[in-house]
């Protein structure tokens, strides 16, 4: 499924080859995907859809999406150059997603966590009421289960079309995190490119640990706004992960290929699960697709109950490539 969606993505030219926006190298698309959407030449991290991200972080088949039927409404009857309602409809059509975030419990190397992932492809990952609600519910679920919560952010900020209601999602999510924190709960915030505005100025900045992917744009105000306000050039690499770390605002910068193992290591260090909560057997993540995929899946099928067996991305690719 992830593969199908990826193929539809508009920012990548259809066909077999992709140009890296960072080093201009021409990359073989199949190879890029197998590399987790990371450029093999310069390590540029291409965006991931929320599904791809979940498939990359969660044990195979362990993610159980919650509240998938939470649909946005145009409460303000907002019209700019087009009605917001149309914009939403087009985003749903284009991405196959209902909104810019998904969440649910899953396991990571057998350890249960609540995972919430934002999707930049859906109206810039902007946070309206549904995204705010999903982040809040994810945190509340984690508090209730006494499990860690991991939120992977990718967002330009609050969604203007839902007005001050979007702004208030900053407060709502922060209130939930405050409760989770008071209970001694663990929250790990993962920042991907970009995480700015109201998302960064609320839950994304409130992790017990805050880590980022390389080269991610992270900040409060967007670079364009700052440039216009100051009427001067911004320093090189301004607001990128590599800029934030030495300024003291990130715990680590983690390459995408190491993200899952690093998160698991953090869980291992910081979180003590109740007896019997940790699964001893689990499946490898299904993204990025690897040659060995079929084998791994077969090995672990006994623990993969409830897994709606999807056609392996590999097979689909093989079918489509002459």
């Amino acid at each position, binding site marked *: 499924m992830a593969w199908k969606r990826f193929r539809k993505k508009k920012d990548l030219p259809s066909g077999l080859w992709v140009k890296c926006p960072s080093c201009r190298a021409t990359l073989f698309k199949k190879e890029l995907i197998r590399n987790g959407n990371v450029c093999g030449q310069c390590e540029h991290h291409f965006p991931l859809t929320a599904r791809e991200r979940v498939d990359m972080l969660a044990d195979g088949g362990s993610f159980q999406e919650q509240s998938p039927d939470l649909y946005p409404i145009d409460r303000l009857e907002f019209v700019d150059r087009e009605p917001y309602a149309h914009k939403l409809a087009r985003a749903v059509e284009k991405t196959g997603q209902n909104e810019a975030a998904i969440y649910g419990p899953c396991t990571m190397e057998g350890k249960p966590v609540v995972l919430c992932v934002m999707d930049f492809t859906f109206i810039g990952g902007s946070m309206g009421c549904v995204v705010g609600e999903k982040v809040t519910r994810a945190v509340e679920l984690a508090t209730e289960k006494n499990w860690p919560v991991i939120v992977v952010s990718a967002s330009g900020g609050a969604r203007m079309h839902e007005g001050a209601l979007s702004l208030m999602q900053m407060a709502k999510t922060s209130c939930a995190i405050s409760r989770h924190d008071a209970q001694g709960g663990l929250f790990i915030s993962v920042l991907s490119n970009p995480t700015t505005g109201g998302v960064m100025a609320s839950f994304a900045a409130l992790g017990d640990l805050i880590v980022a992917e390389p080269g991610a744009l992270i900040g409060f105000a967007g670079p364009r706004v*700052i440039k216009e306000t100051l009427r001067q050039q911004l320093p090189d690499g*301004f607001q990128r992960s590599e800029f934030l770390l030495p300024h003291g605002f990130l715990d680590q910068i983690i390459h995408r290929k190491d993200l899952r193992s690093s998160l698991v290591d953090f869980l291992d260090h910081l979180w003590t699960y109740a007896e019997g909560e940790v699964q001893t057997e689990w499946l490898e993540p299904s993204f990025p697709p690897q040659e060995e995929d079929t084998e791994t899946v077969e090995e672990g099928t006994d623990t993969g109950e409830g897994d709606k067996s999807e056609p392996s991305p590999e097979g689909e690719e093989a079918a489509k490539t002459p």
Partner: protein
Amino acid sequence: MDETKPIQPLDFEEPIFEMRAKIAELEDLSRRTGMDLNGQMQPLKDKLNQLTAQIFDGLSAWDRVKLARHPARPYTTDYVDHVFDSFSELFGDRLFSDDPAMMGGLARLDGRSVMLLGHRKGRDTKEKIACNFGCAHPEGYRKAKRLMKLAEKFGIPIITLINTPGAYPGIGAEERGQAYAIAENLMLMAGLRVPILSVVIGEGGSGGALGIGVADRVLILEHAYYSVISPEGCAAILWKSSEKAGEAAEALKITARHLKELEIVDEVIPEPMGGAHRHPHAMAETLKDVLTRELDALCERSVDELLEGRYEKFRRMGTLFGDEPPRMPEEPASPEGEKASAAEAPSEGATDPELQED
């Protein structure tokens, strides 16, 4: 707060100013000649009140933004002088510096100690520059954080007066973690064990406003606004032209009345006829009454009631959802009819009977 100083009229205030000038002329004439002109003046005064009411009833969202930004509108500093019995300003974030754009200190309201926080815009040019026109840096939010924790430790209620175009967007602000400073305040305020009362007195600019706005009660003055983004910023992004700020202000539903309808604010505090900038002393008196009343009520609540109530208040915000995915309207719009269908479509969605309250 000098009420005798002349104020430049806003465009929609011009008819009011003209009529007021006529009345002033008559008053002057009467004073100079000793003639009794009350018979002529009273109908004019009645008409002036009528006209003012009529104009202010019909203000657009953009007109209200102009009022909220009016240079003669009472600021935090004015309320400090005219609402509170005393004020002892406290400075610094103990980390980097003191930000004058965020004012904080111990105040007495009707004899009761409170921690008072508020954005400061600055009146004269020098002050305005020092305060970055009311746009606080991370230091401002961290000073607020420090003072709120101090208030919590000693059980003093917190009052915040919100009046900012937004948090400062700049290199230093980013280098010192503007987003982090605001986020940490939201989380801190969610769990503070003392009453918190916030009033939007002018501009409620986005995260910079919310950074001292997670309160048990959130009130707003009649002509103040509270928005996710400045109308100009929104227009620049969505309309690709900052000249469409008026339309953006309308679309964003940022006026006090709309915010009350959306349950983002608890109460709208009426302003004196003609706006707070015309009658700052009357405004200060009203605000004092409201703050005293509200604080009395909050101080009755137990800590648990406060925390539960605050959580529920923000938890409920934006919990109205659709029960099916958004879809394009069925009929393909012809280029000719595109405008019309664009205007109709959203109201269709909003009158959907199957809205789900969750």
